[in-house]
């Protein structure tokens, strides 16, 4: 067991730190949460800076440890979040890289890396959330096109996306995990209606997408027809791998800020609150170790994230909610003022035990795939 990095990795860390210290002070402040075009421009601009400095493909080509260092250092330095580039860089990109043809890779990957195109995710449907394979959006062949009709929901960045990684049902007569196909749908195609969806945090964080006989070229299919479920599992394993590294670092920073705030407003003298903060520190230290453990394991197995991602997601999503609930105790009456820091974070943290497979689904995955318990209803 070893927690140290190689000299090459440390050199990468040093170079990255130096670069961040140089460029971050030159960045303008970010746009407001509801300014979608502004967010798109800002996030893509940051990606372009990473590209020019040679850090654009760190999510794809670097070793897991190097990726860990990248996420750790950018978050510690307060660099912008991946934002609108999330689906392209962490879902669609890796999926196309692993499953796409040479032509598809050449068409879609460079614009993602250069910060020129935004992707959104068309997986969930009103009738198929955690039971993703129950999706009903239909696609049938018409010449060189698929014709797609149906609707998607919880689609982040849909208003400003150029492409959508879309799951459609191409064969309704086979078991539900078969008969699904993965398509890259251009968001400017005719027949697409995007309707923003207001969340409990008050903002339009994502959208509903309605598809009315949208034509998608057959050449936009990644993987074989009816093989979309397997392709999707590739995508989801990326999501459950290193997707939360930056967030764990951020949570540890917030925890330190909370302790300082508590000292300033006198709540630090309450031993119950103080001990709760101490326990959260134990929690996030362990989550960081779990990240390092999973990354080491992925490195040993050739870069494939394992089922350990479910263990991590279950624990992390809960810890994040506890962190911001504790923030409310530190804030006191300010916890009800939406203009105070951490108040909106407390609301948005509520999605963590739901998004990307609810905690209940994750527990089933742990029980069935890791512990080998029988499948039930």
């Amino acid at each position: 067991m070893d927690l140290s990095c190689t000299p090459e990795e440390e050199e990468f860390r040093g170079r990255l730190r130096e670069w961040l210290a140089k460029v971050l002070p030159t960045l303008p402040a970010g746009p407001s949460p509801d300014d979608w075009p502004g967010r798109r421009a800002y996030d893509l601009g940051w990606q372009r800076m990473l590209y020019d400095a040679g850090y654009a493909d760190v999510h794809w080509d670097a070793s897991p440890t190097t990726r860990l260092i990248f996420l750790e250092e950018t978050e510690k330095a307060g660099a912008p979040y991946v934002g609108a580039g999330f689906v392209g860089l962490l879902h669609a990109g890796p999926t196309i890289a692993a499953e796409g043809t040479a032509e598809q890779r050449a068409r879609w990957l460079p614009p993602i890396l250069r910060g020129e195109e935004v992707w959104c995710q068309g997986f969930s449907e009103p009738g198929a959330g955690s039971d993703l394979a129950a999706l009903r959006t239909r696609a049938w062949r018409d010449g060189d096109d698929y014709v797609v009709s149906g609707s998607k929901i919880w689609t982040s960045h849909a208003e400003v996306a150029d492409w959508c990684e879309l799951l459609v049902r191409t064969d309704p007569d086979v078991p539900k995990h078969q008969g699904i196909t993965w398509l890259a749908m251009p968001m400017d195609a005719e027949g697409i209606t995007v309707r923003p969806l207001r969340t409990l945090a008050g903002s339009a964080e994502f959208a509903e997408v309605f598809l009315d006989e949208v034509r998608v070229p057959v050449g936009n299919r990644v993987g074989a027809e009816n093989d979309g479920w397997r392709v999707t599992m590739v995508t989801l394993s990326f999501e459950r791998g290193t997707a939360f590294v930056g967030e764990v670092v951020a949570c540890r920073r917030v925890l330190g800020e909370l302790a300082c705030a508590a000292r300033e407003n006198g709540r630090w003298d309450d031993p119950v609150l103080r001990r709760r903060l101490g326990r959260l520190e134990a929690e996030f230290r362990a989550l960081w170790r779990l990240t390092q453990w999973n990354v080491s394991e992925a490195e040993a197995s050739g870069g494939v994230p394992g089922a350990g991602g479910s263990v991590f997601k279950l624990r992390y999503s809960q810890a994040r909610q506890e962190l911001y609930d504790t923030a409310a105790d530190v804030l006191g009456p300010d916890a009800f003022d939406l203009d105070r820091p951490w108040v909106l974070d407390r609301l948005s943290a509520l999605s963590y035990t739901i998004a990307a497979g609810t905690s209940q689904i994750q527990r089933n995955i742990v029980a069935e795939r890791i512990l080998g318990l029988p499948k039930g209803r």
Partner: protein
Amino acid sequence: MRFQLSADQRALRAGVRELLERRFGREALRAAVDTPGRLDRELWRALGDAGFFALRQPEADGGVGLGLPETVLAFEEAGRALLPGPLVATHLAAGTVPGAAGGETVVAAVDGELVEWLDAADVVLGDTGGAAPLRSLDPLTPLHRVPAARDGAATAPLADLLTAAEQLGTAVRVGELAVQHARTREQFGQPIGAFQAVKHLCADLLVRTETARVAVYAAAVTADPADIAAARLLADEAAVHGARDCLQVHGGMGFTWEADVHLHLKRAWVRARRGGGSTESEELLAARLVA
């Protein structure tokens, strides 16, 4: 970064597990329950011969010359096997108390207001004046009560780390017992492990265990007091909560003396109060936040 067990560490863990299965299997465990207060000296010497107490002693002094990570793996196995005796106190006394390293001398230590294994020990560290026996909750850990005055030495970070390793072993074992039972016990025409409510108990048990595991292993690598405090908190939680969930999975059988579950839970409770319990760890970590 290779934050994974090395081949040697895996071999060491397998060796300790094999030794304990051979020398302290289920029959020996239940026999020990039936003879409370008796420490198996032969087993203790066998542990000494295998290097259990001398793992961190330099080879020049007749020790094994390994480090904290290896020691933690050995203590995890001891916890998993529910091995009785003042293991932590004796291990920490190796090199200072003659005979401790080889397993000839059994060393106990006063910890707060309690002492484990006072009568069976050859040497007891700390002030035992006024010690009075308790009818111990844990049939495998005889306890004496001593008048107040906390003993500083007992709360050394190393003792906390080894206790955390034992708790991790307990969490691992109760997880195995719960899953085994959930797979085989049938109700309503199917294994109870097919029911989501049972499945989720088992999944949560594993999540707590694996989170505690990385915390304990990382603390063994860094030996940082804050890492050790974090490991202690998570391992105590994984052991105590895990044993309770295991008991729940066993249903009515879990409430009987015959099932081993209560032995794991009682030991987890006894260990969890060592060194002042969770308060000190939480305060230490809180202090780190504003340091």
